[in-house]
């Protein structure tokens, strides 16, 4: 009960017209401080919804989220949500530097040279030095995501929530960013919840992988990833334990989709509203 971040019997029902759609059904998970948890699930299972509820961006239908003993009802100050659509999440009218400075402005310590200095440090941390005066459109997708990460770090959060953060960058950039994020996570002693549909990514990055079932989602299984750290982009992925973990997760993920449709799935299809 004393976990740092606890998700307590969260459920979420959406109303579309006259139909109600149950997206999440009683999800509970406890996350320790500085833990890296990946939430894995088929697309459309409500992973993003879960993450947005944790972030305090949308309210759950029932249940509650507790951060460090306090209930989350609005976005808490030391928790930052990293949107999947980083290109839309960066403010296009601000340069990289000004984007990174945004959380500092909000927190009210936006004065003087020290702010600029701090922002530049974060920008350096994500490897964007030299691009601080550029506008988002001038950056590649990977660089935009780096900028978004730098901005999230500038808020000095203890929890980072990430919604499929690397799903829209190319394969090589994705590998680079994963390593970068692991470094930052270790250095800043962050607690991370990562939502992804990429088994490889989940196993490579997380301490634990929580697998969601199809809608209405519940936690189907939680797998401990006992791979040594620091993890290496190439070597870790080639290790036998990585492969067997990956095998196991992929197996359950794919099998779950294969057998004949469950009553739930049939209803979802008939509703025709099973997106997002």
């Amino acid at each position, binding site marked *: 009960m004393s976990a740092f971040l606890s998700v307590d019997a969260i459920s979420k029902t959406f109303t579309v017209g006259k139909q109600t759609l149950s997206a999440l059904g009683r999800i509970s998970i406890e996350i320790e401080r500085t833990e890296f948890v990946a939430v894995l699930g088929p697309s459309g299972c409500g992973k993003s919804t879960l993450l*947005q509820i944790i*972030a305090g*961006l949308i309210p759950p239908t029932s249940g509650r989220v507790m951060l460090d003993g306090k209930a989350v009802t*609005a*976005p*808490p*100050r030391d*928790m*930052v*949500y990293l*949107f999947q*659509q980083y290109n*839309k*999440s960066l*403010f*296009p*009218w*601000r340069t990289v530097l000004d984007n990174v400075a*945004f*959380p500092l*402005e*909000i*927190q009210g310590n936006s004065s003087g040279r020290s702010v600029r200095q701090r922002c530049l440090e974060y920008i350096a941390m994500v490897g964007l030095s030299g691009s601080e005066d550029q*506008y*988002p*459109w*001038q950056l590649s997708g990977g660089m935009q995501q780096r900028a978004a990460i730098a901005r999230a770090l500038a*808020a000095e959060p203890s929890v980072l929530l990430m919604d499929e953060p690397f799903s829209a960058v190319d394969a090589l950039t994705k590998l680079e960013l994963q390593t970068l994020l692991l470094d930052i996570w270790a250095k800043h002693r962050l607690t991370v919840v990562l939502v992804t549909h990429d088994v490889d990514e989940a196993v490579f990055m997380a301490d634990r992988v929580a697998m969601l079932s199809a809608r209405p989602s519940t936690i189907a299984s939680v797998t401990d990833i006992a791979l040594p750290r620091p993890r290496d982009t190439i070597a870790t992925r080639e290790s036998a334990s990585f492969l067997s973990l990956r095998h196991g997760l992929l197996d359950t993920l794919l099998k779950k989709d294969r057998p004949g449709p469950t009553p739930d799935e049939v209803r979802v299809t008939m509703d025709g509203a099973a997106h997002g």
Partner: protein
Amino acid sequence: MAVEVGRLLSVPDTVGTARWFGRLRFPILRTRVTGFALVVALLLLWECSARLGWMVSQNWPPFSLVLTATWRGLWSGELAAPLAASMARMVSGYLIGSSCGIVLGLLLGTVRVLDRFVTPLIEALRPLPLPALVPPLILFLGLDDALKIFVVAFAVVFPVVVSTVGGVRDIDEVLIGTARTFGASRARTLLRVVLPAAMPSICAGLRISLSLALVTTVVAEMIAGSSGIGYTILQAQYGLRPEEMYAAVLCIAVVGYLLNMGFVLLERRILRWHQRADADV
């Protein structure tokens, strides 16, 4: 890009217009030299038709006389004074109307209840042609500056409100969510996120209403004439002084052109991030 397109019509030529005509034999046809030649030719035609008596009419002074009348009018103050008076009214009305429009637009765009109750009223009022409002307003405001400033402000409000609301509506939820995840307050989100994000759309409305403000000034001065450039045009027409009338029209046209150009330059500065983002897509 195949050709430097007009400054104000600056649209990328994605179609490759020239392509359709195959390879052009005369590259000069792809420059605006021909266009300027046409303008000069038409002006010459005007001049000659009046001077050489091809077109005998009291209403058709040669272009050169119009130019000298303009010059004289500007120096003697006969044109300069009404022009200045008109501009002062137009600018005040424009500033009042556009600031009201932006504030109202932000409110309507963000406050649901207000939007549901007030927007239908605005929609109902909008199609009413402005000149029709001048006669009743004369009853309340008289014929002086107050009337004209009010009419201009009234004309300007609508496009600005509509474009501001549109801009606010079109803001991506991710932007708002981002502001929220960093804990930005409602007021701060409005000023720091909603306003700049809606700025391109607001500017579009401001530009439309700038030319509308000019038209409205002229219209109001013609209907409720006591002074101003619109009144001058009408008086010159009644008094059968065509050079003066054309000179006044010329002044208004130049002012309209300069205003639009000034606005485009200003907009480019304000929206530097946006124009580039467009070009990139």
